[in-house]
């Protein structure tokens, strides 16, 4: 449905996206995880043709690309981008915004009341946007995307300013929406991404450094918190298996794949000396994030 082919873009000699390739299909939610300033928004802007790449192309349905305005319009009819809170029209109401997106993409506003109900916006949606809190604005931005109801959605910073309850609500909605859509979600709520994303892409130095899939089998790890000194001590005392990781100077991850049950128990026993609390499971988005960006989340 969407293919990035060798997309490169640089600003003032800083390469933001470096020969990026990606194929994404309908029915997927793709999470994009990366710290600020690593090119998530630029990637979305390239996908929407708001920014022209220095090289490379974006293809839709295998044939459409931004060759001319006619094709751009065709693509934009099936693609909507998440509006930023600061860009909302202060003097218009929430309903006006939703109707605008509904009209522009669906040509009808019949489905707007059901979205208002689904997102519990009834008590404020008719007021002017300037009276809204951050959370209300963010829900409005999301509701505009729902109103547009396009086959491809690019959602940057979708959970910004939302409380726990609303994060859960939006996550539910995303899961409901993904049936017939391709949705890209850039979010800093990494654990939340695990709930609804089919895969999470980690963008670093202009490239995808890792793609975490939730649909297939993932390797299990024995995970425990240890200090840097403890890690050094473990390394000197034991021959840690290949592929082990010490993430963000606190998390030791030992791969259990290919080990027999007795070997796995042996490793657990060895580790009890360092920390009695340990978990077994695949690495989550948070752990990969910490691994690639060296930051504790």
């Amino acid at each position, binding site marked *: 449905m969407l*293919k990035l*082919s060798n997309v490169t873009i640089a600003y003032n000699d800083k390469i933001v996206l470096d020969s990026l390739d990606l194929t994404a299909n309908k029915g997927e939610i793709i999470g994009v995880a990366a710290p600020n300033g690593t090119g998530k928004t630029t990637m979305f802007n390239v996908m*929407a043709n*708001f920014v*022209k*790449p220095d*090289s490379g*192309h974006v*293809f839709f349905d*295998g*044939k459409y*690309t*931004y*060759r*001319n*305005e006619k094709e*751009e*319009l065709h693509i*934009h*009819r099936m*693609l*909507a*981008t*998440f*509006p*930023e809170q600061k*860009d*909302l*029209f202060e*003097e*218009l109401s929430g309903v*006006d*915004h939703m109707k*605008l997106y509904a*009209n*522009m*993409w669906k*040509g009808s506003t019949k489905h707007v009341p059901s979205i208002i109900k689904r997102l519990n916006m009834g008590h404020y949606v008719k007021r002017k946007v300037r009276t809204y809190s951050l959370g209300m604005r963010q829900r409005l931005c999301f509701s*505009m995307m729902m109103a547009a109801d396009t086959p491809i959605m690019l959602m940057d910073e979708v959970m910004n300013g939302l409380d726990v309850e609303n994060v859960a609500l939006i996550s539910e909605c995303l899961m409901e929406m993904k049936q017939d859509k391709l949705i890209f979600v850039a979010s800093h709520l990494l654990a939340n991404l695990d709930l609804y994303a089919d895969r999470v892409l980690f963008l670093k130095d202009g490239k995808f450094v890792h793609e975490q899939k939730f649909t297939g089998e993932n390797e299990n790890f024995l995970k425990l918190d240890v200090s840097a000194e403890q890690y050094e001590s473990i390394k000197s005392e034991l021959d840690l298996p290949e592929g082990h990781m010490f993430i963000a100077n606190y998390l030791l991850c030992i791969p259990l794949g290919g080990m027999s049950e007795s070997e796995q128990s042996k490793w657990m026993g060895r580790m009890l000396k360092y920390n009695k609390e340990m978990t077994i499971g695949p690495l989550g988005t948070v752990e990969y994030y910490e691994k690639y960006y060296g930051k504790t989340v």
Partner: protein
Amino acid sequence: MFWKYVIFETKLLLLNKKNWLLGVALILFFPLYYSHYSKLDMVDLREEKNEEAENFPEILDKFPGSVWQTEEGKEIRSNLIQQSSLLNMQRLYLRNEEQGIFLGFFGAGPNLQNFFEAGLQLNELRLELHRRGNKGIQKEYIVPIDEIQKENALYRYHLEHELTLIQDQFKASNYIPVALRQISGVMFCLLVLFAGSSMLLNDQQHPSVVNGFPISFMQKAASKVGVHFVQIMLFLSASILIGGYYVSRKTGWGDFRTPVLIYQDADFIAISMLRYLFLMFVAFGLIALLLLFTFLLLNLVTKNLYAAIVILLFILLSPQLLLAVGVETNWLYPLKFIDISAVLSGEAAKEYGIEELDFKHAYSWLVLLTFLVMSILYFRNKLLHIQKVETIPMKIS
């Protein structure tokens, strides 16, 4: 989608307080200017005719004796005496009209008809003197040909429509065109520029909301210009109606068949006030369209609202500015069309020495220039997209 987008742009425009303020200012201009206009000292037709008649003894006195004696001199003298006689008859018809005597002393028919017929004969004699080179007549007493043509046009119009001559200059029907003439030119251009200055503002201030709309650039441009154009024309209509109503409450509506002189096909013709208003209104519309499209183009190119305003003002005022530094600016005459009252009155034709410079000529230029600017917008947009194609191969590897 286009109409949905137009509705959205309209909604934003209705929320634009600056434009409402401009509309109120335009509406207030009509009653405010009337307070000045109503204090003006208008020259009465009777006084004008009296003054003309009083000139004749002097014209004859100053006629050179050497010319009197010639055959041609005798013919000129006879012409002048006939002119004097016709002028006095006109004065008499005017007096009769004022006193309500409609029987008339000389010839059949109402006084007014006689007045106009006498006036036409008088002007024919004046034109004959022009053909003879106004020999022996002092310069200050020669009535210019364009003045004669104007007067003839007015007289014929009155005869044709059987209108009364003495009109109250302060009635609404006479005042509205005067007020519109004041607005015409730089004042109207500034109004359009300030009203249109917000056209791209929403796109610049709310990019993530509006950038991805599935609507073409030209459709966006057309809707932006369209809604601003409609708003400006509605403000203009409202100001004419409200201003007219205000004046009518003071002095009455007057007669909208009252003639106004316009320059057309190298001649002056008299048309009704209503038609004159229509011509002005169409011209204001064409000027507004041209300015809005040009402003949009400049704003897109400069990406700076204030730079676009300054550049456009500089272009519009360039004939005057260049003239001030001694540069010949006749070739910039299409810019004069922004002052449509000068075109309709024939001032523009006189100023630039171009006979065909009438309102039809101005309309054609305004339409042509608007299409030119629209074409530039269209091809610029095409070009921006074509540049993108160059980096994209036609087949997926």
